[in-house]
Each structure stands twice: as structure tokens, then as C-alpha cells.
């Protein structure tokens, strides 16, 4: 259900003193809001990724087997689930990958799994969210439950992914318009942007790192088409074109997706939001950050504001993106630990009786 990491509560003496905050809420509720938001965003991102890449395969009929394998391999790599896929499926093709990413419950990162988890979290805080929000997420869940890969293939995958994206947008829009700003709004936004920044970094990293074109392919039709697919995976194609007008050049795509401060899916934009919401969550009002998370967020934001793409490319884009992922991980983990700490309620840590002896 919820991810794996449930650490033990810090001992009493080390717990932060209650922070002076206007809006304090139950940790458990904040936790559910955060994960509900992350899972919906994740589901949408996967849907988009799948859709774009299926479309790409269709468009580019000239793909041979090796390229196809490589193509799907890159998608699997971007999700980090290659090993899991290999365990359950023989080969990577359009159908098996769709099955794995859309419906496979063994994959905690499949659309179905994410929507299930989002709904579970929403259900736990049902009296907190609006009726419309609940109904939307519930309908998406029921819709997914009633579908299978076979149905999707028969009816056409495009419709299917549109439905998911539509519901996700609806949900986010409803949240925007019906969720009270004083009751955990920051946790919803924080979760969403953490997830989004992560995804953009991964999509970019995979393309640069894995789909390194051979010398002859650079700038060729295939390469360009792949970069277009990368942009489409982030819903960024039109925005990019408006910004850079004509050419799709790799370094420009990277620059756009990393540094743009106006495009809502760029890493910079996301981190700016993350920083803002994090400060509200942790009650950071001063000029100098007090917490580790705020410090890390501030440093990351500063880099994204001041570095240039040339500097990044010189030092290594892959390393840069990996560092970003690590920072995001650290930041989100600390926020979770500080505000949503749980006593370890995992199956290993049960309530125990002090045992007796005669």
C-alpha cells in the first residue's frame, strides 16, 4: 500500500518542540493527503509516458526489433522496474509493457496499483476531502477495475490513456477548487510536485543516458522523433516550440525541461513550488532555513536558478540528474519524518505482551 519505509519514531527527547503554526493537522491525515496526491500524479505520468511511446511506435514504422527492444527497455529503465518486468514477462513489446504498466498489480508502480493506493488513502480521509473529489477518484478506480489489457487493445489504447489523464486533471482541478486551503493543502501540493520533478528528471536522464545515439543517428529523423517523444512525455512539446521556435535540439530540450521557470513540469518550476510549500509545512518563516530539508531545498533551487546548461553538460548531465533525484528523496523523507512520523506499525513491529514465567 504505502511505501516501504516506515521508520521508528525518534525518541521523545529528540522530538521537535511543537512548532508555532496556524494550521496543525493529524500526521496520519497529512500522510494520506501527501500519498493520495503523489499516487494520482504518478498514475497520470505513467499514463502519459505509455501513451506517448505507444504512439511513437505506431508513427515510426521503420523500427526494427533491436530498436524496439531498446525503446521499451528505456521506458522500463525510466521507471526503475526492469528487473521486476523481466521476472514476469518474456519479452518487451507493446502489449506486455502496456500490461505491466497499466494493469499489473504485482507492479506497485502500475497505473492500477497507483490508483488503488490513491483511493485507499482518499478513503482514509474521506471526511476531509470533498464529495466530488472522492467520487472522481472512486470512479477512476471502478473504471480501471472493469478494464483489462485485452479490452484496452480492442477499443484502442489512446482512449484509455485519455480517460486516465482526464480523470487525473479533473481530480486535481476539483482539489484546486474545493479543497480548503487551511487543511493540508500544502501536503497535497508538496506531494504532487515532488512526484512531478522526479518524473521529469527521470525521463530526461533515460534519454540522455540510455538512448545515446550512435554518431550517425544524431540529428537524424529517429533521434529527433525520440526527442519529440521525450517532450510529449512531459506534455512539453507545444510549450517548447513556442519557446525555441523551430529546432528540437537535445541540449535545448534538456535546458527547457530543467531550467524553465514558466513551464509547469520543468524541474525548476517544480522545485520552486516544493520550496514554497515546504517552508509552509515546516513553519520556516525566517530568511535563513532552520531545518535540513529547507536547506537542501534552498540549495537545489539556487542551483536551478543560477546554473547554465553548458555547465551541467560539461560536468555530466546524468550525474546532475541523479543528484537532483537524491536531493528530492532527502527532502521528502525529512518532511515525512518530521511531520508525518509513524510509530512503526509494519507487520514486524506488533504489539507484544510482556511474557510471563512461573
Amino acid at each position, binding site marked *: 500500500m504505502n511505501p516501504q519505509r516506515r521508520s521508528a519514531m525518534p525518541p*521523545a527527547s529528540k*522530538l*521537535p*518542540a*511543537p*512548532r*508555532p*503554526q496556524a494550521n*496543525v*493537522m*493529524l*500526521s*496520519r491525515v*497529512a500522510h494520506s493527503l501527501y500519498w493520495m496526491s503523489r499516487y494520482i500524479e504518478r498514475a497520470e505520468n505513467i499514463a502519459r509516458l505509455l501513451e506517448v511511446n505507444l504512439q511513437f511506435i505506431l508513427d515510426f514504422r521503420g523500427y526494427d526489433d533491436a530498436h524496439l527492444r531498446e525503446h521499451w527497455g528505456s521506458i522500463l529503465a525510466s521507471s526503475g522496474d526492469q528487473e521486476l518486468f523481466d521476472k514476469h514477462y518474456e519479452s518487451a513489446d507493446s502489449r506486455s509493457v502496456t500490461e505491466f504498466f497499466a494493469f499489473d498489480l504485482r507492479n506497485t508502480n502500475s497505473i492500477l496499483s497507483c490508483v488503488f493506493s490513491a483511493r485507499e488513502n482518499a*478513503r*482514509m480521509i*474521506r*471526511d476531509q476531502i470533498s*464529495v466530488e473529489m472522492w467520487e472522481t477518484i472512486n470512479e477512476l478506480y471502478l473504471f480501471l477495475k472493469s478494464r483489462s489489457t485485452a479490452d484496452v487493445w480492442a477499443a484502442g489504447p489512446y482512449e484509455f490513456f485519455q480517460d486516465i489523464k482526464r480523470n487525473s486533471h479533473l481530480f486535481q482541478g476539483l482539489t484546486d477548487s474545493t479543497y480548503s486551503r487551511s487543511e493540508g493543502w500544502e*501536503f497535497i501540493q508538496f506531494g504532487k510536485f515532488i512526484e512531478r520533478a522526479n518524473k521529469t528528471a527521470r525521463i530526461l536522464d533515460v534519454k540522455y543516458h540510455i538512448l545515446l545515439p550512435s554518431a550517425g543517428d544524431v540529428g537524424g529523423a529517429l533521434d529527433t522523433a525520440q526527442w519529440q517523444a521525450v517532450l510529449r512525455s512531459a506534455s512539453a512539446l507545444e510549450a517548447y516550440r513556442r519557446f525555441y521556435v523551430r529546432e528540437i535540439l537535445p541540449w535545448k530540450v534538456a535546458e527547457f525541461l530543467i531550467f524553465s521557470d514558466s513551464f509547469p513540469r520543468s524541474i525548476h518550476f517544480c522545485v520552486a513550488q516544493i520550496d514554497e510549500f515546504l517552508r509552509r*509545512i515546516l*513553519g520556516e518563516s525566517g530568511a535563513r532555513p532552520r531545518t535540513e530539508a529547507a536547506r537542501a531545498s534552498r540549495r537545489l533551487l539556487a542551483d536551478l536558478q543560477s546554473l547554465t546548461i553548458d555547465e551541467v553538460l560539461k560536468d555530466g548531465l546524468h550525474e546532475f540528474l541523479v543528484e537532483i533525484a537524491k536531493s528530492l528523496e532527502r527532502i521528502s523523507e525529512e518532511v515525512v519524518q518530521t*511531520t*508525518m*512520523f509513524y*510509530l512503526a*506499525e509494519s507487520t514486524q513491529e506488533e*504489539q507484544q*505482551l510482556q511474557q510471563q514465567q512461573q
Partner: protein
Amino acid sequence: MSLLSNPYETGDFFDEMYAAGGEVRPHYRSLVERLGSLPLPEFERRRAAVDLAFLRRGVTFTVYNDSEGTERIFPFDLIPRIIPAKEWSRLEAGLIQRITALNLFLHDLYHEQKIIKDGVIPAAQILSAKHFRREFMNFTVPHDIYVHICGTDLIRDGSGTYLVLEDNLRCPSGVSYMMENRAAMRRAFPNLFQSYGVRPVEAYPEMLLKSLLHIAPDRGDKPSVVLMTPGVFNSAYFEHCFLARQMGIPIVEGRDLLVQDARVYMRTTGGLLPVDVIYRRIDDDFLDPSVFRSDSMLGVPGLVAAYRAGNVALANSIGTGVADDKVIYAYVPKVIKYYLDQEPIIPNVPTYLASEPSDRKFILENMARLVVKSANEAGGYGMLIGPASSKEEVAAFRAKVAANPRNFIAQDPINLSRAPTWCDNRLEGRHIDLRPYVLCGEKTVVTPGGLTRVALRKGSLVVNSSQGGGSKDTWVIAGDK
């Protein structure tokens, strides 16, 4: 064609609206006038609007027959039950008398036990009561109040006399329906409402909060009050959320709280915040795994220790169930006499105890014409209605009683009163009861009215929500007409 075109027969039952000769009682006359002049389609329209509103607002309860719970709307009947002022003031006095005596009783049971030493109640009855909590002996509770919230079920017999059917001293529920019903009636019949001068019930959450604040450990600054719920899976979850929101207090589950050095804290995004008062809607058994059931995941380890140390207050207190045990119920008139030296203003239903040898013989021989109840089951479960049961059912129940007499009581069947209810497109008489809510804080306050539950099935006496019951708004009017 109006609602009243075909008045129903009152038969052997006391009817709330129709007196013996068929004429309408004074306090129902205005209602009858209004209903008489209301065209049927208009009535239907208002009824449908109310049902839809309930659905939208999610005024539901959950029925668990399998692992999947189904949410149902508690059926609401638009015809109010009306109580004139004089009748009500007597009920109010009787309820206050009863809860005062019960609080004294509980204090005595958990301290000197004088009532046992003076031979009024056999020790064995108390000790064998399922909800007598030995862990609670000698405990000090704020202001010696054990029951802060009480829901006592009242019925009327064939002569119209009110009787106490049972007390609910642990986690009485239904208040949210009372308030939702009132809101629905206001919308459906705004003018009628005004002209009757119905006494309001909207102040309940405010009064409840006041009683909760009254028991806070004295710590100077504003006490922190929370409502503790078993969670989304509980059938009354809607009510828990409703009350918490109305009072403006957080709603928490056991896992949101923790105890350190005998103090209770709430886990929040701003750190650990102290908790002073807990309005708990969780049974004693599940409250604290270090003292009660160790397998409970709903409670808070150490909560009883914090309570004992005087660092937190609970409403209702622990161990109140001994006083609403169906066997102890039979002794309540004696309890009132013992502590207050008064006769009960509202009598009990005459009750036979299977644990008493003379009664036991009577019960076993006459089971087919008695209502026999298990001492500790809720609502209509664990009950035999002799006159309505088959020979086999009676025989099976007789065996149960013979095997475990302490666990059973019997009563003569009462012809419950009936009230006009809209059933299958006509007004019919259906059996009802009444659950007024009593709050004990600095003062003891009875909310005017309460929840009138109605057995919707023809001839049925069972008013439980999960067994075909519904509810009505209850109007206590300022005058007598």
C-alpha cells in the same frame, strides 16, 4: 385526496395522534389541519426532497453482513412525533432523577460498594456483569461524573404510560440523526414549525462540548478536547465526524494518540500536542491494549494509566456498562430509592430475572408469552419475542436460558405505542420508541425531544436501524397545543 382521507384503526394500541374515540389529540390538531390541506403530490415532493438531501449529505450508517459494508440511509418519516410541554417536563424530571442515581451508583460500585454491603443488590450480580471493570476500582474521576452522555430508551404502554426500556451508558448514538432530522423538517415544513413553537435541539453540540470541558484536568490554558473513533469501518462513523465538526474538535483514531510518562499526546504535523479530554466512541474492551484486550488495534497503550494519573479525562468513563446491564436494569428502581430516597418518576418495564430461582421457574414455564432478552446484546439481537416465535425457537431459547440463567431476563410484552407514519402511500400506525439524550456536566441537561425510532415493518416491534427501523423528528412544544 389528502393524507388523512383514510384514518387508520388504533386498535389495542395507544396512539400518539388518535385518542380512543378516534378524535385527534389537542397537540396534533395543527398538524392534522396542515396535512389535511396539503395535496398529496406536494407531500410526496417534499418527502422526495428530504430523502435526496439525506443521500447527498451522506447521513448514513453502515451495515456489516459480510466483509464489505453497505452504507444505508436511515429511513426518515416526515410525520413528526409531538410531545406537549406538561408531558415532557415529567419525562425530563424522571430522566434527570435516573441519571443522577446512576452516577451515584457507579461511584459506589467502584469505591465502597455500600449498596452491596447493605444487601440491596447481590454481589454476584455485579461481579458477573460483563462490563463491571475491576481495573477501575478506586479510580478518581473528575467531579465524580461517570456518565456524561446518556441515551435512555423510553416506550409507552397500552395506557400511554411512559416506561424506561433501557439505559445506554457507554457509547449512545443517534444524536446526529436527531439533528439531521430536525434540519430536514425545518426545510420541509417551515411554517408549521414556526406556528408550533418547537423547542430547539441545535444547541446539543455546544452543550456537549461544555460538559467535556467541565471535566478537563485543571491546567490553566484552554483544554484540548478530541473525539476518538474506531475509524471509517465503524457503523456510526458518520456521526463521529458530524459531532466532531459541530463541536470544532479534532477527530482522532487510537493510532493518532500516544502516551508518554502518563500523559496523552496527539501526533500532528506540528509535533506532539497534549490532549486533555477524550470523548471516546470506543468500547472499554478496545480502549487500551495494555490493560484490556491486548489484541486491540483501536486503542492507545497507556491510556488507562494516564487517566488514572489524572492527566486526561474520558467521557464516558470506563466501566459504566455495569449500570446498563439488562440484569442490573431490574434493580434501578431500588438504586433510585437507595441513593435519592425517592420513587422513580418513570417506572421500569416489569422484569423477571432468570438468575432468581422463583423468576427462573416462571420464565421457563411461560416463555412462549414473554419477551426474553440476553443481558448484554445490543438492540434486537439475542432476543426472543415469545408470542411471535415458533415452538422450535422457543424451545431453543429455553435451553439457552436454562444453561446460563445469569445472562437472561424476561418481560411481559408491552403493547408499544404507535404513531402515524407514511407507509405505502397511506398513513398507518407504526410502533415507536423514544431516545432522549441527557448530558451531565456542571448541570444535567436533557435535550428536548431526542430520536424517535419507528419500526417500519407492519406489526414489527423492532426499531433498530439495521433491522428495518427508521426515525422521526421529535417535537417538544412549548405549550400543550
